[in-house]
Each structure stands twice: as C-alpha cells, then as structure tokens.
C-alpha cells in the first residue's frame, strides 16, 4: 500500500472533478489506451439527486461522470456480473460496491482480471427523495437550486447555483430522521481497500485527490496515466496521511456507536407483518445471484395464501443462504415497497458471523465464499 496526491492535467476534467479530477483522468487513460471496453460510472440524469449508472465507451463523454453524488445510492455489483462478465471494464465503486464485487469474484460471477476498480471513499449516501425533503426542511434553500453536495467535516454541505454554500451537521440531520441512509450510518468500511485504488478528498490539498494505491494493478494505473500525460502526482505529507486516517477513524467511530444500538428482535418488529412477498429485496441483492434457480421460486415456498409469510419462511431462507456475505449496501431497504428495514437483520447476522470467524464480507482475504472456506466448515 502506498499513497499519492494526484490531479488531472486536463483543465476541463480538473474543473469538473470533485477534488482534482484524478478519478476521471484515470478512467480516460484506461479508455484512450484501449485497456478497457468501457467505463461504468455514475452520472446525473435529471439533476444532482438523480445519479444513474452510465456506461461510457468514448472518453469525451467521461466528463459527465465527474464529481461526487452522495444522493445516488446505487449498486453496480449486480450490473457488472449480469452484463459485463466477458468484457474488460473499469468501474467507480463505493466501499459497498467494492465489497459486492469482491464477493461476486469469489463466486466466479465477475472475473478479477477483467475489471479495474477505482474505489471512492464514502462517508455515506443520502436517499434522493428524502434528501430533497431534508434540504427543504433544514436549509434556507430550494432543493432545485442545489448544483452539488458534499459530506465533509461531519456536515452535509450544499452548493447553490449562485456559488453560495450551506452546511448542517449530519448528526443533527440524523437525529431528526434524515441524513445518511441507516445502513450507511452503521457502515464501518469507509475506504474500499479491495479496489485497485481508493480515492477521495480526505487528507487532500485543495485541487488534489488523495489516492491509496492498494495493489500492483493500481500502481500500473497511476504510472500509466502519468506517462500518458493526463495525471500529475506528488507525495502527500505525513500530515495529510494522518489527517485522512483521522477522518476515517472518526467515521468508523460514528458507525460503531450505531452498531452498538440495541435492535429489536424480529418477533418484536411490526414491520415484518407488512411483507407482501414481492421479492424486491432478493432481486436487488447483489449477493443473491441464483436468479430463476432461487430456492424461493420452488413450488413448496410459493404460498400466496400466506401473505405476509412468516419471516423465517422467506427471509430465513435468504438469511441462511447469504447473510454471511451481506455487504450492508442497504439496497433491500431502499427497494422494499413496505419500508421493511431488511438489511438490519442481514447485517446483524453478518456481524455475528464476523464475531465467530473474523470474516468481513467483501473485505477479508478469503478466496472462497463463507461456508466454503475449509476453516469455517466446522461451524
């Protein structure tokens, strides 16, 4: 592992990027050199709250993916496995995206050699609809006037079209039921160290991206982009490295506080009686890859007269199949039409599994999925 500060040598990208445009420049290098067939990244569709995974094959189009979008709680792991299995692609990935990709690599659903992952440090994401409502309620601004947003120094900061900024403490927003998604609040993986590179502004000087180089492939990307004349780098001062570590530490500490909260048991939660068996949670889960072969599609599990299903008959099956690999991306919560906090129990079980085995889904170095690792079969 090593660190560099980097910035784009391309003026347009430098200006459009969140902190120096290094990520976009590295992606441009990959496309221009023909190293990848395309880039999967997030770009805003209708506005800054509407981040949509976008596949780019012409590097001129990469500029629209520049910048950070905290109101775009997307998941790309399943897109990569479904549509890019045999393609060389580069992706930008939050820690939960990276963890999903890693779990899918161990299941041979993504080929490690085919993918370049430019990781993005993440303090958490905000759901777009509640994010707009939050800005309406807690800021002196019209949500439509926001041109960019940022999470920095414990605040959710918005920038308006007139250049002004407003900030509110995330802690205060979350106390009122807004702010980051609940899974993001308890997430303690803030830097995607399984990615080839982990990029962000923590510890960076203005106009520079702080990059953690995690492996040889990552080093080759930095060297190649520099050689191609699109990236400038310098060594960060020790103070910058320490500053970044401090931010990460604070974020993890915040997460741990939420993790230590006492969750009600399933039988104590009314939410499960709202389940309509629509399988949205299963279908969106990046770790659930069985699709039409899913056990839950078998006739003995199809009982439409029993709605809501007893939690153990539906989620119990999913829990036993994949909770050990839950990456706490919160997609199941996001898509549940009945607002059932599904990820709560999956993440809880993953953490119990971690306590027994030390395995953190998508972070630990096991080459096989949980329950397939020889050292865990005894469990």
């Amino acid at each position, binding site marked *: 592992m090593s660190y560099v500060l980097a910035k784009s040598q391309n003026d347009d990208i430098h200006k459009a990027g969140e902190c120096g445009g290094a990520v976009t420049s590295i992606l441009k290098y990959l496309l221009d050199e023909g190293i990848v067939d395309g880039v999967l990244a997030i770009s805003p569709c209708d506005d800054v709250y509407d981040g949509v995974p976008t596949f780019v094959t012409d590097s001129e189009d990469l500029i629209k993916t520049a910048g950070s979008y905290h109101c775009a709680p997307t998941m790309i792991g399943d897109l990569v496995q479904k549509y890019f299995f045999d393609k060389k692609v580069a992706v930008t990935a939050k820690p939960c995206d990276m963890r999903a990709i890693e779990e899918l690599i161990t299941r041979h659903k993504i080929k490690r050699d085919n993918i370049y992952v430019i990781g993005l440090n993440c303090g958490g994401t905000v759901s777009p609809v509640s994010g707009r409502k939050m800005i309406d309620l807690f800021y002196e601004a019209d949500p439509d006037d926001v041109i960019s947003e940022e999470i920095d120094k414990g605040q959710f900061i918005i920038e308006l079209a007139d250049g002004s900024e407003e900030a509110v403490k995330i802690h205060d927003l979350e106390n009122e039921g807004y702010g980051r998604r609940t899974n993001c609040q308890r997430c303690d993986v803030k830097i995607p160290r399984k990615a080839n590179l982990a990029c962000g502004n923590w510890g960076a000087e203005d106009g520079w991206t702080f990059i953690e180089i995690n492996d040889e492939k990552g080093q080759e990307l930095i060297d190649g982009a520099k050689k191609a004349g699109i990236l400038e780098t310098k060594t960060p001062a020790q103070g910058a490295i320490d500053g970044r570590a401090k931010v990460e530490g604070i974020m993890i500490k915040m997460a741990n506080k939420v993790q230590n909260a006492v969750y009600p048991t399933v039988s104590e939660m009314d939410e499960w009686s709202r389940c*309509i068996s*629509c399988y949205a949670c299963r279908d*969106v889960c990046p770790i659930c890859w069985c699709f039409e072969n899913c056990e839950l599609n078998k006739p003995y599990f199809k009982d439409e007269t029993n*709605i*809501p299903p007893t939690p153990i008959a539906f989620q119990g099956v999913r829990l036993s199949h994949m909770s050990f690999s839950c990456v706490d991306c919160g997609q199941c919560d996001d*898509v549940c*039409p009945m607002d059932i906090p599904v990820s709560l129990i999956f993440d809880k079980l993953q953490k119990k599994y971690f306590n027994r085995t030390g395995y953190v889904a998508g972070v630990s170095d096991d080459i096989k999925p949980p329950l397939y690792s020889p050292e865990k079969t005894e469990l």
Partner: protein
Amino acid sequence: MLEIKHTLCPSCSVGCGINVVLNEGEVVGTFPYKRHPVNAGKNCLNGRNSIDCYLNKFENVDEDALIGDIKKELQSADSSNVTVICSGNNTIEETEVIKEFAESNGFNIGFYADNLKNYDEVASYDDVENAQKVFVIGDLLYENPLIGRRVVHAKQNGAKIFAFVKAESSVTSNIADECFNASVGEFLDACKGEVDENSVVIFNQVDDADDLAKIEALNCKILPVFSKSNTKGALNILDAKSKDEMFELLDNTKVLLVFNDDIVDELEFDFSKISKIISFAPCANKTTEISDIVVPIKTWLEKDGSFVNAMGETQTFNAAIESDVLSEIEVIEKLNG
C-alpha cells in the same frame, strides 16, 4: 452498450417511476428509479414485471393488410353497431385521438374505469401521509403497495387506520387499528361517525353504486386508485360507463374495436355474441385470444406519452427504445387515411 432509462410504471394508476435496463439495444431488466418522487425507487412485483409486455410482444406483421381488412369491415358495418373500447392503458394523447376517431365516425365509445368514476378533487399522496384517520377499502397494501406505503407512513405519523378487506387475513388488515370484512356498506356505516375533515378514504374497488354515493357524501378527502395507469387521465376526457352500462353497450355491438385493453378479462360477458372483434394490442391477452383481427401496436416502452396518476398529477414519459411498430395514434391515422 448498457443504458438505464427513466420511464413510468404502467401497471396501475399510482404513477411510480421505474428505470429500464437496455443492453445492446434490448430491454433486459428494470432498475430502481430512486429519484422519483412517487415511489423513491420502490416498485411492486407487477411494476418490475411490466417489461414482460415488451419481452413477449407480438412479432411484426403486414400491418397495412390488416388495416385494409379493418377498413372494409368498418365500411360495411352500421356505425351505431360499432363500439370502440378505450381504457386507462391508453395515454392522454391516444385517448383524445381515439375519442375523436369514434365520434367522427359515429361509433359508440366504451370506457370502463373499474366501475368507479371521476372526481375533480382527490386526496394527494401527501394528504394520505398526513391524515389523522385513513379509511382503506380493499387490500391496498398488497394490490397497490406504493399507495399502501403512504398508509403505513400515516400510521407511523400517528394516524388511526380503518380497513375493509374481504379476505379474513391480509397485509392491510395487519396494519389496521380496526378491520371489517362483511361489506363495504357496513364498513362505511360503522365508520361514518369517525370520519372528519382530517380523514382520507382510499379505495380501489367499490362494486355498489350506493356505496360510492356514501363515500361521496362523507366530509373528507377521497382517493380512488384505479387498476390502469391512465384511467384518471382518460376520465378527464371521457365519461366512464358502469359495469351494467358496458353490458348494455356490448349487447348492441356487432363490431368491437379494442384499443390496448383486455376487456374480456375484465367483464364477464358472452363476447361470442359479437360478430367481429378487432384488437390493437402490444402482446397477447384474453381479448386478443378471441379476436378476429389483432394488430400489434407499440408497448409503452416504445412511445412517448403522458399519464395522469391517481392523485391527478400529469406525468410524461419518453420512449425507452425505438420501434417501427404502429402506435394507437398511427393506427387511427391509417384507418382515417
């Protein structure tokens, strides 16, 4: 080339947003549209399966030959015996053109809106969430989950929930404070004293006209939820017929033109009494199965248009994928040509 495009869910009148995934120019799946204000990326199973209509669409046919056959049929028919079926599956733009087509040719129009009718003033989804009491008729949480979610929010905000659901157990009853299953009329009579100006009545099926009249007489906001995406929009253009009125109309019909609807599945009528049934549909349904002529038309994914959702908000959408197949409007242009 992977693309993710915004569109609207066509599976009921709630008006949810949904993203479709295209790979190499083909529709391959759906993806949560989290920015959409109605559903925030949440879709029910019907919504996520709505692309099945595109995936199972009719193969291309010689449309001109079929249109020629239909023209001959219409020319030889007495226009008073020709009925055009319009539905909430048609966009606003299509409904207007279908209405004009029927009226200019002297054909009857049959428009069935779940045996419900139009109301100028309806509750918004925010009204539901902020109501102090919510009266639910039908298993809304299961049948229209993204409205059901608003009822859940109302409960979380402290509202009292009253529900009428025919089934003995249901998801809607699970969240209700008081539940009834005898009849809608009995439910309304029992709850009448509870209803006030801070209440909302939501319903997706009321069979009896007297019960509808009781709902209208209540001193509160109401929200009818229709089974089709643009029934509310079509109701702004056409008068809906009741089930009995539809049966009467069909009894006097010799040629039936069905524009993107499955009237056979909806109404228990002996359609064999009708001499000629002509369907304009994107994919197979019970009506196309018994039709004499079936003209393939565009699915909603292949056209631009607008729907009016249950709370009366007009929502526009653009084609997610190009297609050479005719739309309802193009069919009518050819029939008029």
